């Protein structure tokens, strides 16, 4: 019998691999170890993707299957789903992991429907149970509750994973084999829906995900002018600024990629400093893995205080200027 294989569907947008692609290899490695040594395979669709394939091969993938075809240059749901459905029918994997991104999430749901198998979405953890089934831990009610999902009888067991949950493997872990797949199945398909183009907004700012210190601002910050205090503090600490939904809606922030929580990003900084944030579950799920949480809230009853390691009950305007000044003096 062949050794079991964990499959990962990696993704590229305009010739760039997305961060979750590498993190999925990290997740696959964890599962492969739990399986007692499975191999890690990934599949990538696109045009001119040899370099990307090699990048994946040097980041922990044992096998990199490439579907290289001009018709796959942009994400086309019908082409992509057609290819992957056939590919997985041939490969018959036990486990397939996908990114919980707009593109891969939609694609995974499409392929799951065609394979008539299960798909759990936005998993926050994955592990095997005693029977060797994949336990897919999904958030419900904004993350207040976590539920285990199993797919006992259909295969593959498929799950999507958000960016920022698993760590990528470092470069140099393995040198996988590159395998080109036949894409002639696309010849018989003329997609009804066509992706005409991708408009990239300025390159995504990844500093927030990597920052050791994140200063988070909420509705209590009160104005764009006050917001500059948060920016000042974070830049002194070499950190980044994140926000809650109301702060985003007010337009004080640097764009929606800085929103932390259920509908936003997940971060794991050394220190998170939450300012004017009440501590709703939708926000907390995004910061719960911070090593230290400090919060400043003027309301002693604000829930965030009990979800923090340290809390300050005060108007932040009375604390931040002094803190900033002190750090400036010190540096």
């Amino acid at each position, binding site marked *: 019998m062949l050794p079991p294989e964990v499959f990962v569907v990696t993704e590229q*947008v305009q010739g760039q691999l*997305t961060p979750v692609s590498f993190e999925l290899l990290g997740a696959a490695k964890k599962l492969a170890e739990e399986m007692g040594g499975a191999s890690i395979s990934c599949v990538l669709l696109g045009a001119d993707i040899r370099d990307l394939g090699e990048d994946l091969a040097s980041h922990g993938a044992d096998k990199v299957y490439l579907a290289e075809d001009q018709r796959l240059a942009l994400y086309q749901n*019908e082409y992509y789903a057609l290819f992957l459905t056939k590919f997985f029918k041939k490969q018959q994997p036990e486990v397939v992991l996908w990114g919980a*991104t707009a593109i891969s*999430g*939609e694609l995974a*749901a499409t392929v*799951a*429907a*065609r394979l*008539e198998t*299960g*798909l759990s979405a*936005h998993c926050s953890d994955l592990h095997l149970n005693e029977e060797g089934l994949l336990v897919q*831990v*999904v*958030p419900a*009610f*904004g993350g*207040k*509750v976590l*539920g*285990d*999902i*199993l*797919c006992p009888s259909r295969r593959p067991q498929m799950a999507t994973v958000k*960016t920022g949950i698993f760590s990528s493997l470092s470069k140099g872990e393995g040198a996988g084999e590159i395998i080109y797949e036949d894409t002639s199945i696309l010849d018989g398909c003329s997609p*009804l*829906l*066509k*992706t*005409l*183009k*991708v*408009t990239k907004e300025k390159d*995504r700012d990844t500093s927030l995900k990597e920052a*050791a*210190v994140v200063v988070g601002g909420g509705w209590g910050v009160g104005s764009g002018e006050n917001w500059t205090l948060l920016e000042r503090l974070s830049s002194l*600490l070499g950190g980044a600024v994140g926000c809650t939904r109301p702060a985003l809606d007010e337009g004080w922030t640097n764009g929606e990629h800085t929103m932390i929580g259920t509908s936003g990003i997940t971060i794991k900084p*050394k*220190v998170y400093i939450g300012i004017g944030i009440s501590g*709703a*579950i939708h926000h*907390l799920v995004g910061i719960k893995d911070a090593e*230290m949480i*400090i919060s400043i809230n003027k309301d002693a009853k604000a*829930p965030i205080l*009990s*979800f*923090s*390691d*340290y*809390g*300050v009950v005060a108007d932040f305007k009375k*604390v931040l200027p*002094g*803190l900033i000044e*002190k*750090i400036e003096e*010190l540096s």
Partner: protein
Amino acid sequence: MKERRILVCIKPVPDPEHYDKIGIDPASKTLVRSGIPAVINPNDKNAIEAALEIREYWGGIVELVSMAPPDAEEKLREGLAMGADKAYLLSDRSFAGSDTLATARVLAAGIAKIGSFDLVITGSESADGGTTNVSPQLGEMLGLPHVCNVESITPQNEEQWQLNVKIEEGYLKVEGPTPMVVGVNDKINTPRYTTVMGIMEAEDKEVVIWSAADLEIDNDKVGLTGSPTQPGDLHEPKLQRAGKLLEGEPEVVVDKLIRLLRQAGVLNA
């Protein structure tokens, strides 16, 4: 000009404003969610609004479809009060426990029975389960092209529509013919409020209720039996921390903060 027929899939969910109150009963390990009112899934109000705007532009009718227990009729009336013309409630004990695939099957069976249409609009994401699976899977079950995370819908002509799709990196511009299934996001519009007039008019609008038998749907294709995924244990993530308060005058607090930042290794000065 051809009139449009637009179907909108809506789902009642426990009000997301109250999710902090949801928990797990330690003894029975089941969900505690009593007293939390149901609302139309917020994102589905964007779907209704998008449909109403298309109707205002092109003319036509807007009909709501929901798979839910019988008491969801009240939520469908709320959608009718926003301005939709008619509603279908797909309700049967055998639907309970449906995962996304089984839900998509039931919705597709209901939509097939409704007949011809130009567009099915759904939300992209529900607030309770939040899988984002149902919209694409419904498209698959109907054998139609589908696209979700849609932030604007622009009709090009009678049959051709252009969609702006939000992705993490920016946008995709997608084009295709109707009929199709479109999942909209919450940026596409601001849903209108219901008016007293709307609520009164909704009382006279029709809500059709269909069971599994009406849909001629196979019992083992729906509900928990027809679902490839099966729920296991529930947990509550541990969020509580020490919550130690830093007290004193602002200068004292600042010194304590400085000490903490040093201790955490993020302030070297």
